[in-house]
């Protein structure tokens, strides 16, 4: 089942950034840190003290192909007692443990590194564990990631996402290793810095779900897979030949050239990876290498 057909759909979350040039120059994370420094950080939507002692109203998407009463997708309302620091994940866990043990979602680490609890919260892809209730307007709508098959409730089928990740040969391929027992490959600090952000991907699929192009072209590699290719193509420890092989993979018909620089992936990435920039940089590299493009 596709969420697009069956589920009452929020307006699409993709918005072009106001000034793409600016976005390219500065990552959302840099921007956030800078704003913070200048005391301009966005105020919380709701003052936490106003919520204390109250309940939070969440509307959770429900669907189960097997259970008659849940075959028709719907939203269930839960009223969860608020506690300071409560996140969206805390709220759905409370609802599950106290009210309805059949409420189903993936979650594990609770600290934004396992990547399993990306949901569509109030119309935006977010990690449940990292999203504060006090930052959201109520009632809070919690839905599975759009453009993915729904397995049950908030659980989506990740197979397609994993297939795309695997399609870029996501593993280090330098076979010519230094000799000597404990001799490592040298990597400059600058080069590590260059690939650093790309290595932070937690495979949550928020970016893929936010991408208009991926929604329309099932074969498009998508931002996460292209970022994975970037991670290796830009690592100086792999040699030029392998780099060219990697560029050939991403410059194929359903690769980097499909990206229309809408920045929606960069906007939603919970690890602040400049995904759109990485895609653009691979386009430039492919042009420089004089590879055929579509």
């Amino acid at each position, binding site marked *: 089942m596709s969420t697009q057909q069956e589920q009452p759909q929020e307006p699409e979350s993709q918005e072009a950034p106001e000034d793409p040039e600016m976005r390219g120059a500065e990552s959302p994370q840099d921007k956030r840190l800078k704003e913070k420094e200048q005391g301009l950080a966005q105020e919380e939507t709701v003052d936490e003290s106003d919520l204390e002692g109250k309940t939070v109203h969440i509307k959770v998407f429900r669907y189960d192909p097997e259970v008659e009463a849940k075959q028709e997708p719907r939203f269930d309302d839960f009223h969860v007692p608020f506690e300071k620091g409560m996140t969206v994940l805390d709220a759905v866990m409370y609802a*599950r443990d106290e009210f309805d043990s059949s409420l189903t979602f993936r979650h594990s680490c609770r600290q934004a590194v396992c990547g399993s609890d990306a949901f569509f919260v109030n119309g935006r892809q977010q990690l449940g564990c*990292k999203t504060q209730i006090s930052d959201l307007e109520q009632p809070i709508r919690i839905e599975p990631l759009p453009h993915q098959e729904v397995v049950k409730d908030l659980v989506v089928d990740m197979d397609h996402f994993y297939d795309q990740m695997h399609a870029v040969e996501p*593993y280090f391929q330098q076979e010519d290793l230094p000799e000597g027992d404990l001799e*490592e490959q040298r990597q400059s600090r600058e080069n590590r810095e260059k690939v*650093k952000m790309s290595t932070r991907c*937690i495979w949550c699929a928020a970016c893929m779900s936010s991408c208009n192009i991926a929604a329309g072209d099932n074969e498009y590699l998508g931002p996460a897979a292209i970022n994975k290719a970037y991670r290796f193509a830009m690592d100086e420890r792999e040699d030029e030949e392998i780099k060219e092989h990697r560029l050939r993979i991403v410059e194929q018909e359903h690769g980097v050239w499909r990206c229309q620089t809408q920045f929606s992936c960069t906007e939603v990435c919970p690890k602040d990876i400049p995904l759109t920039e990485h895609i653009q940089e691979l386009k430039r590299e492919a042009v420089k290498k004089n590879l055929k493009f579509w």
Partner: protein
Amino acid sequence: MYEHDVIVVGAGGAGLRAAIAAHEAGADTAIVSKLHPVRSHTGAAEGGINAALQEGDDWELHAYDTMKGSDYLADAPAVETLAQDAPDDTITLEHWGMPFSREEDGRVSQRPFGGLSYPRTTYAGAETGHHLLHVMYEQVVKRGIQVYDEWYVMNLVTGDEPDPNDRECEGVVAYDVQSGKVEGFKANQGVILATGGPGQAFDHTTNAVSCTGDGHAMAYRAGAPLEDMEFIQFHPTSLPSTGVLISEGVRGEGGILYNDDGERFMFEYGYANNSGELASRDVVARAELTEVGEGRGVEDEYVHLDMRHLGEDRILDRLENILHLAEDFEGVDGLVEPMPVKPGQHYAMGGIDVDENGQTCINGLYAAGECACVSVHGGNRLGGNALPELIVFGKRAGRHAAGEDLGAAEIETGYGDDVEDETETELPVAPGEAGLDSSGGVAADGGVATEAEGLLERAVEQERARVDHLMDKDDGVQHAEIRAKLQKAMTDYVNVFRTGDGIRKALKIIRECREEYQDVYVDDPSRTFNTDLQQTYETRNLIDVAETIALGALVRNEFRGAHWRQENQERDDENWLKHTLISWDDGEPSIFYRPVILEGEDKTYEPKIRSY
């Protein structure tokens, strides 16, 4: 039924490393994991990998620090193997593309960690575990190793022989979380458990919700003893509201702990006059709680960890991830204010009793990583020693299971000639008596099956019946209620500071949990992605594991490493240089002991007073 040579249960650091090694040794290898590999909790490790890589350092120093850190409860052959293999195995990760932090000359960087005499912690920012996990998963993909992800392993399949040493592990029974299908997995050569820690036995933990001690409990019920379970590490710096970990790397880089009076209490009150904040974890955790107990804590709950003086550049270079964690989960900007921290359950030093090759006393059953106890950590694990354990012993278990000769092990397992029986301990309740749903135990039906296929079929039928029973039952108790009660009891009574009376209270509550579990049911009627069913299985495992932790804590009437007892605040080398072993025997736990091996290759590690 599925069939492979080697089946690895769990896909974190140890599981992936074991699978790669078994595959390289020529075995047809498969990984069965309840999570997709990249979701594993190894990804949350922050600090680094200890390995003697640099000139001026050597494996003997690493081994010495580890023996001392363990409070002389680690086995020297295991510790020396760890220290000897770690450098090679760490560089292998680099060769696989691991993005380690670098020095100016392009070599991998190393930094100081608590309890280390040399800065030998190799790291990748403050997200070493994330990179380690992803790099190893990449290698699994590269090699085309079969992964059954989101398959929950429910039980091990072994024979019924009365002595566990005579039993053979034939495979596992698992169910496909997505479809609810229960199937047998036959392992022709071996099963390797790499299921991680049991942190969910406590309610304030740095562990993921998936860390439910599944491997511990399955091995225990199959007859392999659990070793040194009372040794639970409480990490000194977890965020108070969520338990999210703040890496020891912060103190390694020079972060300072202050009490509410602004005093640098590690020195001010003499907890560790030489090492200060970099004393080992048990020392720092007790110091923090003592400060809070004596009224010098912030808001009577926590202390402050300050890294502002390190400067923005250094923080962003080496600890950037910490800034995000403090901001996202506690609303604190580590660049402008100190971070609130308190001790949280973090790591289980004990685990399934194995030798240096990862083998348990059951033939064909292996364990590696946090679920195993080799033992290298003894009473207290040093920061930076968990990740080398994964790669060193994961690799060894994989090679051995695939049939490689690694030489005879020096460490014994199971109930052998070297064990000593239980001294009289008065238990408040007969812990295992109530038992759990009896269909899950070994030989519950008194059957006569001895061939692998017969055993597997029987085990699959048992699990299918158990699932049907849980789902057909219309009311009773839900697992979440039992789990919450268990977690609270453990945190209240089997925490950093322990008393005999408190532990007895915990054991009584655990017994109640066992009784309530008899009446457990699954409310969700669906076979599709039924997390209610999965968590009901996990809760049963947590009951078994919690019981062994509390039992071990009750019988060990001394103070060693992370195990502090109010009644005995001294280490008692005369009586307690021995491992606690608990095995599941005819429906109840039985306790016995094995002496610690302090003799290494060339020297004996003489127990000394541990001061920092």
